[in-house]
């Protein structure tokens, strides 16, 4: 029984095509077929957020989205967004505030934070906490992540750049 389908998508700015089984979800396709290890798999139930990627400009659970559904779509992972725009500010802030330890949640956390900054730039700490409650972190205890996101929001509100982290 071969149900493989032909798909074409824009992935991190490049057009790619592939033939895949419909049952393969987007994260397995990205990680196993394309070697993009940024998004991670935690629960495969949509609860933990480690698999968060961007489809057509918005965050989704990569484990609850089939690769075949990405046909004709624009997909972005942390690899494609790294060190540019809001991601670069977030990465600096995450480093400064020690907002990552093992890094498993970080890709998802960055993408979720980026969407918050884009859509709700006036968020306070409580609202940040509510927004990122869909991304589980077992290491940091979340405070430092909230601090980092807060720093980026405040910098943007003040119209300044987030200071890059440099060796002392």
């Amino acid at each position, binding site marked *: 029984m071969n149900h493989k389908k032909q798909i074409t998508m824009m992935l991190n700015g490049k057009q790619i095509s592939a033939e895949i089984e*419909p*049952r393969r979800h987007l994260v397995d396709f990205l990680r196993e077929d394309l070697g993009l290890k940024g998004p991670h798999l935690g629960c495969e*139930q*949509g609860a933990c957020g480690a698999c968060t990627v961007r489809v057509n400009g918005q*965050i*989704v659970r990569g484990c609850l989205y089939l690769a075949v*559904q990405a046909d004709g779509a624009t997909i972005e992972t942390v690899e494609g967004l790294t060190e540019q725009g809001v991601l670069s500010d977030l990465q600096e802030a995450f480093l400064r505030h020690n907002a990552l330890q093992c890094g498993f949640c970080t890709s998802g956390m960055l993408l979720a934070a980026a969407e918050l900054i884009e859509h709700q730039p006036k968020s306070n700490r409580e609202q940040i906490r509510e927004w990122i*409650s*869909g991304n589980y972190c077992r290491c940091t205890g979340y405070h430092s992540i909230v601090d980092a996101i807060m720093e980026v929001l405040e910098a943007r509100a003040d119209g300044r750049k987030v200071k890059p982290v440099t060796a002392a």
Partner: protein
Amino acid sequence: MKAAAFDYVKAKNLTEAIALLSEHGEDAQLIAGGQTLLATLNLRLSEPSILIDITAVSELKDISLHGNILRIGALVTHTEIERSDLIAQHAPLLTEAAPHIAHRAIRNLGTWGGSLAYGDPAAEWPACSLALDAVMVIQGPDGVRKVSAKDFFIDLYTTTLQADEILVASEIPLASSNQDHCFQELARRHGDYAAVGLAAMIRKDKGEVQTCRLAFFSVAAIPTMATKAQAFIEGKSIDAAVIQQAVNLAREEIETLADITNSQETKTHLLGVLLERALTKMMP
């Protein structure tokens, strides 16, 4: 665990979607947002032989006004509802409820129609549709039919949708100028299944309640209206005594069903707490 193998077809329009559903029958499952279905398939709690993707059916994607009716297409996502100016103006209960649904990433894909068609007892939209006197628009091989929300949810995960039908939209009367609403949801953590929830709507005339809708969710197998409490409140002005009596009535009339985290008694207690908060908020 990974999903078992299945075939996949994407319907180009509603007619094709309905034809595909009739053709494949029980072997198929529809996929729209997929936020419930794919989680189910990932655990192999279902092994359909084919998925029928309806996300390209553009006629199901609009939020539109038709006279004094607001029409929400089945494929409208929770985030689109959250961000819609039309909904904020004409059905603000939904704007208030939307952020309570799961988390942003899930809201970006999950759909109005999907939530209603499954009728999960803890879901927000079924209760909201009851509170707003929504009418469900359903299409199948024999054509279109309409069912009011209060006749739509009949048992656990069971609506009046037949196996060969698709929910295409809901029609909601526009919020009148004398309409107020309140949405309450209690959960241990944001995004968890509700312990108890309430979607409430009232219409007042000179301080006196003309219409009262109190739709509770996560209290029983289906979203449940406190009809006796509603009837009691209608014709009266809301004050502390009315609130107290309404709370007692609601607690008496609703037969709560325990779930894995909360007993019947807890749910009965909490539904009264939410009702008190909602009525207090809608008092002025």
